[in-house]
């Protein structure tokens, strides 16, 4: 199995279709295939063992993804927001290899890492050079076919590191190919379909989006720098039919569209969202603003090769229209597991499966689940289950509800509590716009509950009022002992709440 086989099928069946478009530049499927072959020939120099890319989305990105697979070299998209010292520690793990980056960084990083000798080197070149080299007239394709070995590493993705030093998740050819074969219909897209891609390359949804689009035959329009205004304008100009956004992006899009008089997006048939918790108010507003659009909520992790559970368009409509509170609540669930994925909720301490409705750890199993970090081996258990360390529960209908990372669980006097449960209650208060609940050290209880909240404009609930609000709705042990009022909460660029920063800020206050 190899990602190149998917591209070969695409080039064979619809080679003249536009595959990727960035501004006025584009690549057809056949051009992408040829460029990948030329890059693969270039990478087959006998010493390059990694290809890293540190740049925004460009046409060079899909060429690099597939060219690396053809050459049998792992591809590592890096976060361009990292500092140079942070980058150095990642590059140390990618030797010997090649780093492709923008011109400014290439000049700055080149001398330093090139000074290393032997196997300890990373050569540096620019993204533009990679693309022009791979597209040059007369560039010859790699003669040897790509490996069909399923265990080859296709992509190394450094996890976002909201809880510590970045680790490289290993996605092998078998994981990504299984994901595509199990969830995407070959040539399922209409020739006029176009999807708008604004997720950064170093996010699993960015990588999965590339390989899924190729297999479905959909034209991908890259929007490297997200702003709500550009997103809306591009979606309208290019007749975008599909898009994927993270919650913070949708929230901004909704804000901008609410200001408009005719806020229609009539061509947008499918809008998928994921990558973080979607506030119910945002999704409800979005559904009102885009009455003709089908919404899909996707849940997945880097370690599971993207999506493992989906709340589809019918689920959204059913939940919105239902008078049954349990069905209505499904709007904030992540839907049901893919047919190729098994989900099991396990007790936090015993790791024994629990009944429907009971909270626990989310375990998953399936061909696309990697659960492997470089240098640490596979974290799958003997039966192939992966502990996501996300907390959650399944309702009676098999809908999966997330309750945050288990690493964030607060243990107060031996009682485990999920910050998400307390945050949800705070967010139902009319004066609260955003909330983050964490555990803080406490001599008596081990940990105590602290809440950091952002209030709405013109609202000023007191700490005592909010404490009473939680106490009335949850057990008294869940009442925040400390309430802080902030202007805003820290999020990373893909919409993940940075609890670590909140924790550090509260500690520094003491």
């Amino acid at each position, binding site marked *: 199995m190899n990602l190149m086989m998917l591209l070969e099928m695409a080039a064979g069946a619809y080679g003249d279709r536009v595959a990727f478009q960035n501004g006025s530049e584009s690549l057809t499927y056949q051009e992408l295939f040829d460029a990948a072959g030329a890059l693969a020939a270039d990478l087959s120099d006998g010493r390059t063992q990694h290809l890293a890319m540190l740049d925004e989305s460009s046409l060079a990105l899909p060429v690099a993804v597939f060219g690396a697979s053809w050459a049998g070299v792992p591809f590592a998209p890096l976060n361009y927001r990292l500092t140079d010292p942070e980058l150095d520690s990642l590059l140390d793990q990618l030797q010997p290899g090649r780093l492709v980056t923008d011109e400014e960084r290439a000049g700055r990083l080149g001398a330093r890492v090139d000074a290393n000798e032997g196997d300890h080197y990373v050569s540096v070149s620019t993204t533009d050079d990679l693309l022009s080299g791979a597209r040059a007239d007369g560039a010859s394709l790699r003669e040897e076919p790509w490996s069909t070995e399923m265990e080859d590493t296709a992509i190394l993705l450094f996890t976002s590191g909201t809880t510590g030093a970045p680790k490289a998740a290993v996605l092998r050819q078998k994981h990504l190919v299984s994901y595509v074969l199990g969830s995407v219909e070959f040539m399922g897209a209409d020739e006029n379909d176009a999807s708008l891609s604004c997720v950064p390359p170093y996010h699993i949804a960015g990588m999965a989006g590339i390989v899924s689009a190729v297999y479905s035959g959909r034209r991908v329009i890259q929007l490297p720098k997200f702003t709500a205004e550009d997103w809306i304008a591009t979606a309208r100009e290019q007749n975008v039919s599909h898009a994927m956004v993270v919650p913070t992006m949708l929230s901004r899009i909704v804000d901008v569209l609410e200001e408009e008089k005719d806020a229609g997006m009539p061509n947008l048939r499918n809008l998928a969202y994921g990558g973080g918790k979607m506030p119910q108010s945002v999704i409800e507003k979005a559904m009102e603003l885009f009455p003709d659009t089908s919404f899909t909520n*996707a849940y997945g992790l880097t370690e599971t090769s993207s*999506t493992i559970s989906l709340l589809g*368009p019918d689920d959204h409509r059913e939940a919105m229209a239902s008078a049954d509170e349990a069905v209505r609540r499904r709007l904030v669930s992540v839907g049901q597991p893919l047919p190729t994925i098994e989900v099991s909720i396990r007790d936090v301490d015993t790791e024994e499966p629990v009944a429907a409705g009971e909270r626990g750890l989310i375990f998953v199993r399936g061909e696309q689940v990697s659960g492997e970090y470089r240098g640490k081996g596979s974290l799958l258990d003997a039966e192939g289950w992966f502990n996501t360390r996300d907390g959650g529960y399944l309702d009676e209908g098999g809908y999966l509800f997330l309750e945050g990372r288990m690493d964030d669980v607060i243990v107060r006097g031996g009682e485990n509590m999920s910050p998400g449960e307390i945050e949800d209650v705070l967010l139902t208060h009319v004066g609260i716009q955003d909330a983050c609940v964490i555990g803080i050290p406490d001599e008596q209880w081990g940990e105590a509950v602290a809440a950091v909240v952002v209030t709405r404009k013109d609202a000023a609930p007191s700490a005592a009022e909010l404490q009473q609000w939680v106490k009335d709705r949850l057990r008294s042990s869940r009442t925040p002992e400390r309430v802080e009022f902030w202007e805003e909460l820290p999020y990373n660029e893909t919409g993940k709440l940075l609890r670590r920063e909140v924790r550090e800020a509260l500690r520094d206050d003491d």
Partner: protein
Amino acid sequence: MAVLKAGSRLKSAVCSSELMVVVAPAEDVTLTCGGAPVIELGADAPAGGEVDADHKNGTQMGKRYTNEAGDIEILCTKPGEGSLASGGTALEIKGAKPLPSSD
């Protein structure tokens, strides 16, 4: 007769079909396309082979073919006139409800 190993690439000996093994059977079975045993993708097809009239329903690109037990699964990577059979039993298209696009 080619070895059936997950990930391996095969082709028909008598038509243009090209295949990839998604799920390999635990036991040795003969996989045929167009009535003739399949061969490695890189191998030369024997001259003069023809698609058997009883195995002429064709393969469709991008479709996965499986048996009732589900212990074999073959992806068609290039279509052809011949149809697939495992141990003499015709393989059927794996019917899957298309999922909504999520990325």
